[in-house]
């Protein structure tokens, strides 16, 4: 049976919707919400598949940083995934008052997105999926531009300009644009009020997962440009 090279998932088992999961977040509530069954476990990628409202959905942990995320997006897009929601973590600025941040853009201080597009191209979520995700969070998320970096310990690009820093969003948005698929993200701060000792509470992650599944399965899926 053919398997995705890095992900180890049988190509025949890839549906149209995927949740990309930051390994810092507990996976149990995300998997449980879709009554997920183990699909594969290879390298840093742990995959489950389940159902939401009659739609088959994949959940996969994506490792640390943009490079392994891009590998996952590429292999999944080539096998049939048409829409992604990243459930991720970020270091929020103090002035972010909401529990979650819904990036409406990402500053491209990462290396991966530059290997897809000139820096002038904006890293943006799909506008429809972004709006559906906002509705699905019921007001628990605020919009903001996140700065995607490769090393969190470095200096922020321009103090006060971005609402948070993360390791993935810019690469996800630009890779999705290059492949003509839908993508959006929902972030939580593991050092904020939603977490205890750096671990985001299961209830919070479960609520994030529900918002992701609702929005993903509500959009009309276009054709991808994966084989341009």
């Amino acid at each position: 049976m053919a398997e995705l090279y890095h992900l180890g998932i049988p190509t025949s088992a890839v549906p149209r919707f995927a949740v990309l999961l930051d390994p810092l977040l507990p996976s149990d509530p995300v998997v449980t919400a879709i009554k997920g069954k183990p699909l594969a476990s290879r390298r840093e990628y742990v995959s489950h598949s389940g159902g939401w409202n009659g739609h088959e959905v994949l959940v996969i942990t994506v490792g640390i940083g943009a490079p392994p995320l891009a590998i996952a997006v590429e292999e999944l897009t080539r096998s049939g995934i048409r829409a992604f929601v990243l459930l991720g973590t970020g270091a929020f600025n103090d002035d972010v008052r909401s529990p979650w941040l819904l990036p409406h853009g990402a500053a491209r201080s990462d290396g991966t997105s530059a290997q897809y597009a000139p820096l002038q191209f904006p890293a943006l979520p799909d506008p429809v999926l972004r709006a559906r995700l906002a509705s699905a969070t019921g007001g628990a998320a605020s919009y903001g531009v996140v700065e995607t970096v490769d090393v969190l310990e470095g200096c922020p690009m321009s103090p006060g300009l971005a609402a948070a820093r993360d390791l993935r969003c810019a690469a996800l948005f630009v890779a999705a644009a290059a492949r003509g698929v839908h993508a959006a993200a929902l972030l939580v701060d593991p050092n904020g009020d939603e977490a205890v000792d750096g671990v985001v509470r299961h209830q919070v992650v479960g609520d994030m997962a529900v918002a992701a599944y609702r929005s993903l399965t509500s959009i009309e899926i276009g054709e991808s440009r994966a084989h341009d």
Partner: protein
Amino acid sequence: MSPSPSLVGCRYALLPGDPGRVARLLDHLEGAVVIQPAPPFVEAMGYLDGTPVVVAATGMGGPSVAVIVNRLAERGVDTFLRVGGAGPVAPDVAASEIIVASGAVRHEGASAHAAPPAWPAVADPAVVDAILTAASAEGRSVRCGVLHTKDSFFGEVDPASSPIEDELRSAWRSWQRLGVLASEMEASVLFCLSSRHGWRAGAVIKVNAIGDHDGAAWTDDEDLCRLAVGGMAELIKADRG
């Protein structure tokens, strides 16, 4: 230009590039008053359900739009909607289509003065969603996606005449493969300035017939102006809660 006291309390602006479009936007507002009648930088004001809205022509290009929006912001405006024209980039975009910008490619110089190169030129989601709501309410089909903002109009329409022809064509193919919808000359500058200063901005454009794309050239921008004003009305409504 001295500050106009008549803009006091006005936080919303409609920004056509072409001064000729100011009057056509004003047709959709109540109690229109012309503040600056002489081209190029025609400025006027009207009301939407009692809320004042300024209509100001920006002229063409990043440098010009930067001057105009900075002057408006000095007078209290913090919400900007560009209402303009653009040429098609994506092969399946047809003339006369209306596009709501989610963001824009920064293929210009002025936005570098507002934000570092890695920053995305992005429209404010509240502005985007207000225009999409207005379009949906009038049954108008629009697309929402990324625009391309450039400084050289003729680099787009006549790359063969340019000393950097290969570079222009190569970049253009990249924008197409990244799903960019249409090309114009102001949006990314407006968006980056708005990020820098904490303003809200959006853009709604109508696609011109440029190059070998299908569809006739349009001269009627009535649908564009109606949708822009309808979008602004939705935003004002949302702001009131």
